[in-house]
Structure formats: structure tokens, C-alpha cells
């Protein structure tokens, strides 16, 4: 029992509960003392990480850990236990969640040290980690959904952490609402699968049995046509993907993620870069056995992923806010992951999730450190030359940038290279020609990636300092508790890629084969050994081209960007304003919705019908009461009089009875 993996979410929940209670109990004193919060705030994720590592070594030995706590509910056709399982896929994810999570917790202790909501922050953050572990370890789609919704809630709470600022509170709401749209799809997809399972009368309670069902008995049922020519599994796949798009910020539901940067930077690092947003990828990988049965849905996903990658990358070029650059970069990288899982290279997608978690968390934390140093400045145009002031932050961020750009031998190179390579070997059921198109789009996107990443580096850390002299005097390197996680993450970002050295470069892709213990499908197997030296060369060239171009633009000839921007005219402004997608949504969806809600639901249904009904009952009751109040004189003797009349009638009726 003591080594049960249930302890991983257990300790996290304990941390969240203790911190939450401390905060609640000391609300009138402005929050608990930091000294009381920190042991639980840091203890919970680090202990969880240690437990995860211990569990990982068991999984590495080929074991699948599982534990069941209690029966959640029993719908005669469908039973759900609160049970956890850990196979290789979960193990990878939980290591990322707890490991990177623990580092970011540590960093946040320094980052949030002066914030009055310290206790509240860590109770949320621990709660988030708890739900994330539920999501990753949960043994059934419904438990996964619990975690899925839980992390959404925590994301909402943390984006709007400084809720006194209206814009930030609204950003939280936006994230929540956009996620709901996706979640509807997810719920419908899960229900569709459950109903199919239930209709077949088979007993399915976790992923393993669901997989057995999908590949065995239920294959025919799942592939039977459902809407038009689309089979059940196709429709379910579409719906589930919708959920993944919402959670993982893909076109067209990505709009919440840039706004989510309103939260504290550790939140952006943990939730909106490293863990939660990758939940969609994890979910697709987890349910891979369903998706491989739905090639149309997969192709759709791959295309959407690739387009998102390019789309967000172009926006990233024109952003001046350092966190916005990283946010769009995250959207773009998530697009890469979706392209990977879309073409059926699930392990590759997961590999990118892992490497991305490291370098993007590093970049976000570095950005936080940068923002923290020159005192809450996020605009890159007001930075420059910071490498002298904050060398640790600077050099670690450069390592992260190299990894993001895909420069060898840093981690991003290996994962991205594999994604590019796998697009050329898509799912066999795909329409022909899609593979090369995806490859081209993603190559352009990675060029853009390298460009905007180093644009950020040059603008922030090199060149003339554009920092306000007053602020500059106070600018300083962050304390050790913040830089230490940066260094650890930098080491990870630099080295983690060697777990997945492809065969083309003479490696063994240890990571890929580990994940394939779980993700076992023919489509996945097709990618084994894909990729050629030529493709590796192209990828390296593209990355270095992007870096050099940005060096040329922002170090050698700083006037070029301005002229180029002017030359592009309207298109430039369009890109700078993120293609005005928000305005478009506002015009096409949000405004019509609110207006129709007001016109139809408020003015007609609510005011006329609902209120009318309520008013009718009210006035009816009032009228009746007006009649009855004639008897309610308030004088006791009247009551007694009526009572006695009743008594006489009663006695009389008893007489006439007998």
C-alpha cells in the first residue's frame, strides 16, 4: 500500500488541502505565514516526484502499475472505479508533470515571495498538480475527464489570480469558456464510446479493456456508420479532437492561450507551456487505438496541427511582448505535436511534449526572471543588453532558445527532426500527397520559429540597453531559488534530446521504444526507423538559417525590420495584431451570441415566458391568499371558533358513523 501510485495524487492533494485550509483559516490576517506554506507547497511536488521516479523504475522493468481505491459509481452497464494505472506513457507524463512541476514550484517560491496571495497561490498550484496527476494516472476515460476539468478549473483560477485587475479576470473567464467548447466535444465523444460499449454489453472499465474492446469484439460496432458515411469511431474521434483542440490551444480554439499570459509567470510556465496544454496530445496518444481506426479524423488533426504551427509562428514574429512571443511559440509547438500524433507518430509527439516541457518551461521561467529583473517590464523594445546584468538568466535562456530553434545537439532538434521526418510517412490510410504538404508547412514554421526565438534573444539580452536608466539601476539578477531551477532546466533542455537520438544518426531512440511499450499500433510501428540523413541536414540548415537571419536583422542591420514592416503595409499590421482573430470571433460569434441571447432568451423567453409564468403563480397565490386572509383575523378566538366547529363536525361524523 505504501508504494501505491495513489500516493502521488495523494500527497499533492494533501499539500493543496493544507495550504487551502491555512489560507482560509488565516484569511482575516491576510494569508498564512510564508514559512508555514513553503514546506507543504514544495514538499508535495518533490515527494510526488520522488514517488514518480520510484514508480518509473518499476515501469521501466516492464511492469504496469495499477491501484484501485474504491468504486466511483455503478451504472449497471458501465462501472467506473477510482483507480490509477501507470504504464510507460503515464510514467513519462507523470515524470514531466511532477519533475518540471516541482522545479517550477521552487522557482515560484522566489517569484511570488512578495505577493500577498502567497498561500492561495500555492494551494491552487498544488491543486493543479494534483488534477494533472489524476489526468495522467487515471485509468479510465471518465477519470481522465475529472483531471481534465480539474486542470481547467485551476487554470482559470490561476490566470485570474490577480482578479482585482478586470482584464486578468476576464482572461481567466475566456480561457474557461473556450475550454468548455472543447470539453463539450470531449464529453460527447466519451459518451458516444461508452454508449457503443454499453450497447454491446461488454464490461469495460479502463483503458486496457477499452483497447481490447476496440481492437477485438467491438471493432465492427465502432466502425459501423453513424452519421452519413462516417463511422462511430470517426465521429467520436472528431469530438474528442475538439476537446483536445480546446485544451491544447489549436486552431480555431487557440485564442485563450495568449490571453492566459495574464497569470503569474510560473503559471504560464507550468500550465500553459509544460503540462496542461499538452493534455490534448496525451489524450490522443492514450486513445491512439481509437484514432488509428479513424484516418479521416487523424488527417484532419494533422492538417490543423500543421496550420496552427505555421499560423502561430508567423504571429510570433511580430510580437513585442516577451510573454506573447512565448505564448504563440507554445501554440505553434503544440501544432507540431498535433501534426505528429495526427500522422500517427504518437511516441514522437510525446517526445516533443517532453522536450518542449523542458525548454519552454525554461524559457518562460527565464522570461519571468527577465520581467522580474527590470521590474515588471514585458516589452522587449524596452530591454536589451540584459546579459550583463543577469548572466545566468541570459545564458540559460539562450540554451532554451537553441533548443526551441532546433539547433543540434539541443533537445528540440531531435524531437522536431523526428516530427518532420514522420510527416513523410503518414498513416497509410491518408489521402496521398498530404505528407509532403505537411512537411513543407512545418519546415516553414520551424524556420519562423528559429527566427522569432532569436529575435527575442537579440532584443532582450544583446545590443544597446533601452531600459529606462532609473529602472536599470535597480535591475538585478534573480535570487538563487529562481536561478537554480533555470540551471537545472537548462541542463535538461540541453541533454534530454539524447534519449531519442534517431536511428538515422546512429542512435537507438530509447525514448521511442519505451513509449511504444504502451502505444502499440501498426501505424506507430511504421515510423520506427523513419528519417534519413538528408532530412536531418535540411532541418539543421533551416534552424541555422533562422538564427542567422534574425542576427542579420536585429544585430547587423537593425533598420531592416522597420522597413520590412512598412513595406508589407496592411499585411504587416494584420500579422502584428495576430490576424485580428479576436476581433473576428467577437464579430462572428461572440457578439451575435450575446445579442441573440439578449433578444431571444432574455427579452422573449426570460422576460415574457419565464417571468410571466412566475408572475402568474405569484399573482395567483396572492389572489388566493387574499381570499384566505379574510379568515386570518389574528384574533385567537376566531381560530378557536372555527376549530370548535370542526370538532363538532368531527364528533357528529363519528356518531353518524357508529
Amino acid at each position, binding site marked *: 500500500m505504501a508504494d501505491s501510485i495513489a500516493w502521488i495524487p495523494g500527497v499533492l492533494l494533501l499539500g493543496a488541502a493544507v495550504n487551502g485550509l491555512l489560507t482560509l483559516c488565516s484569511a482575516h490576517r491576510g494569508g498564512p505565514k510564508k514559512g508555514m506554506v513553503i514546506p507543504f507547497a514544495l514538499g508535495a511536488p518533490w515527494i510526488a516526484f520522488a514517488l514518480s521516479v520510484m514508480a518509473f523504475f518499476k515501469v521501466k522493468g516492464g511492469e504496469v502499475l495499477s491501484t484501485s481505491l474504491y468504486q466511483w459509481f455503478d451504472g449497471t452497464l458501465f462501472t467506473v472505479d477510482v483507480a490509477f494505472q501507470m504504464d510507460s506513457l503515464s510514467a513519462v507524463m507523470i515524470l514531466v508533470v511532477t519533475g518540471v512541476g516541482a522545479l517550477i514550484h521552487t522557482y515560484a517560491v522566489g517569484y511570488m515571495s512578495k505577493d500577498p496571495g502567497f498561500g492561495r497561490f500555492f494551494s491552487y498550484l498544488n491543486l493543479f498538480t494534483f488534477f494533472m496527476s489524476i489526468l495522467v494516472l487515471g485509468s479510465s476515460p471518465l477519470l481522465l475527464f475529472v483531471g481534465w476539468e480539474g486542470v481547467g478549473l485551476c487554470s482559470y483560477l490561476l490566470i485570474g489570480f490577480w482578479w482585482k485587475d478586470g482584464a486578468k479576470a476576464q482572461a481567466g473567464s475566456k480561457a474557461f469558456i473556450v475550454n468548455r467548447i472543447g470539453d463539450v466535444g470531449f464529453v460527447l465523444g466519451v459518451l458516444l464510446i461508452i454508449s457503443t460499449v454499453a450497447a454491446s454489453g461488454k464490461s469495460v472499465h479502463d483503458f486496457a479493456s477499452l483497447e481490447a474492446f476496440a481492437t477485438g469484439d467491438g471493432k465492427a460496432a465502432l466502425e459501423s456508420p453513424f452519421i452519413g458515411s462516417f463511422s462511430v469511431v470517426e465521429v467520436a474521434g472528431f469530438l474528442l479532437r475538439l476537446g483536445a483542440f480546446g485544451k491544447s490551444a489549436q486552431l480555431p480554439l487557440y485564442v485563450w492561450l495568449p490571453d492566459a499570459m495574464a497569470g503569474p509567470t510560473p503559471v504560464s510556465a507550468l500550465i500553459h507551456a509544460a503540462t496542461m496544454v499538452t493534455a490534448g496530445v496525451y489524450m490522443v496518444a492514450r486513445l491512439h487505438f481509437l484514432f488509428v481506426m479513424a484516418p479521416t479524423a487523424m488527417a484532419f488533426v494533422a492538417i490543423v496541427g500543421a496550420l496552427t504551427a505555421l499560423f502561430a509562428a508567423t504571429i510570433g514574429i511580430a510580437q513585442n511582448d516577451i510573454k506573447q512571443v512565448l505564448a504563440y511559440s507554445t501554440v505553434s509547438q503544440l501544432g507540431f505535436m498535433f501534426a505528429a500524433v495526427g500522422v500517427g507518430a504518437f511516441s514522437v509527439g510525446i517526445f516533443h511534449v517532453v522536450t518542449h516541457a523542458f525548454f519552454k518551461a525554461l524559457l518562460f521561467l527565464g522570461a519571468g526572471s527577465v520581467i522580474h529583473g527590470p521590474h515588471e517590464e514585458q516589452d522587449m523594445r524596452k530591454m536589451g543588453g540584459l546579459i550583463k546584468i543577469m548572466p545566468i538568466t541570459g545564458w540559460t535562456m539562450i540554451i532554451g532558445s537553441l533548443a526551441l530553434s532546433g539547433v543540434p545537439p539541443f533537445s528540440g532538434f531531435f524531437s522536431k527532426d523526428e516530427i518532420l521526418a514522420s510527416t513523410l510517412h503518414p498513416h497509410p490510410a491518408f489521402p496521398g500527397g498530404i505528407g509532403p504538404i505537411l512537411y513543407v508547412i512545418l519546415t516553414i514554421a520551424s524556420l519562423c520559429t528559429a527566427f522569432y526565438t532569436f529575435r527575442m534573444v537579440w532584443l532582450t539580452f544583446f545590443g544597446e540597453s533601452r531600459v529606462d536608466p532609473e529602472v536599470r539601476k535597480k535591475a538585478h539578477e534573480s535570487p538563487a531559488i529562481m536561478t537554480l531551477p533555470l540551471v537545472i532546466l537548462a541542463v535538461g533542455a540541453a541533454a534530454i534530446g539524447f534519449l531519442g537520438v534517431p536511428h538515422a544518426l546512429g542512435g537507438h531512440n530509447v525514448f521511442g521504444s519505451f513509449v511504444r511499450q504502451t502505444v502499440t499500433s501498426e501505424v506507430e510501428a511504421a515510423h520506427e526507423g523513419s528519417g534519413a540523413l538528408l532530412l536531418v541536414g535540411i532541418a539543421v540548415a533551416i534552424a541555422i538559417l533562422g538564427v542567422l537571419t534574425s542576427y542579420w536583422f536585429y544585430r547587423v542591420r537593425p533598420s531592416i525590420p522597420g522597413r520590412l514592416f512598412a513595406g508589407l503595409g496592411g499585411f504587416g499590421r494584420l500579422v502584428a495584431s495576430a490576424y485580428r482573430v479576436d476581433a473576428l470571433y467577437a464579430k462572428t460569434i461572440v457578439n451575435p451570441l450575446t445579442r441573440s441571447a439578449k433578444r431571444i432568451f432574455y427579452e422573449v423567453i426570460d422576460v415574457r415566458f419565464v417571468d410571466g409564468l412566475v408572475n402568474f403563480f405569484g399573482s395567483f397565490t396572492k389572489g388566493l*391568499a387574499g381570499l*384566505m*386572509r*379574510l*379568515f*386570518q*383575523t*389574528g*384574533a*385567537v*378566538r376566531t381560530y*378557536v*371558533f372555527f376549530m*370548535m366547529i370542526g370538532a363538532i363536525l368531527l364528533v357528529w361524523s363519528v356518531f353518524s358513523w357508529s
Partner: protein
Amino acid sequence: MDVLDRPEGFLMVAAVLFVIGVVGFILRRNLIVLFMCVELMLNAVNLTLMAVARYVGASMEGQIMVFLVMAVAAAETAVGLAVVIAIYRKRATVDVDDMTVMNG
């Protein structure tokens, strides 16, 4: 036949007392008198309980019941009189016809 061998005598006395209580309750306006009418009715019921238990069931349960009713009546009187005093302090009257705050 001796009146003490049958319950009817006691029951009739009880009935008469009860009716007197009811009529008094309807006739009088003084809150304290109403209160006493209620006590009278309780007493009549006690008499009935005693008589029926004694002559029909030949058991002492009626006496137990009367005992309990007495205890409850004592509690009721204490609370009721406290209420009367409170009302009097507030309104300077114990006339129930003046107490129609609860009218509809």
C-alpha cells in the same frame, strides 16, 4: 348502582368542564382568563384519562399520563405567562382582541 362503580359520572363531569373551558375561551377576552380556560380543558382531559384507564382498563397508565400532562402544563404555564408579561410590557394590555398583529 353506585356512581363510583362506573366511569360515566366522572366522564360527564369532565365533559361539562371541557365545554365550560371552550365556551369561556370564546366568551372572554382577557388573555390570562383564556389561559385559565385552557388549563381547565387540560384538567377535564386529565379526568377523562383517569376515569377511562381506571374503569375500563383497570390500569394505572391513565395516572401516568395525567402526571405527564401536569408536567407539560406546568411548563406551558411558565412559558405562557412569560409571554403574557412580555406582551403586557410592550402593549400595556392583555386584551386578546387588541392582539391582531398576525392578521392577514
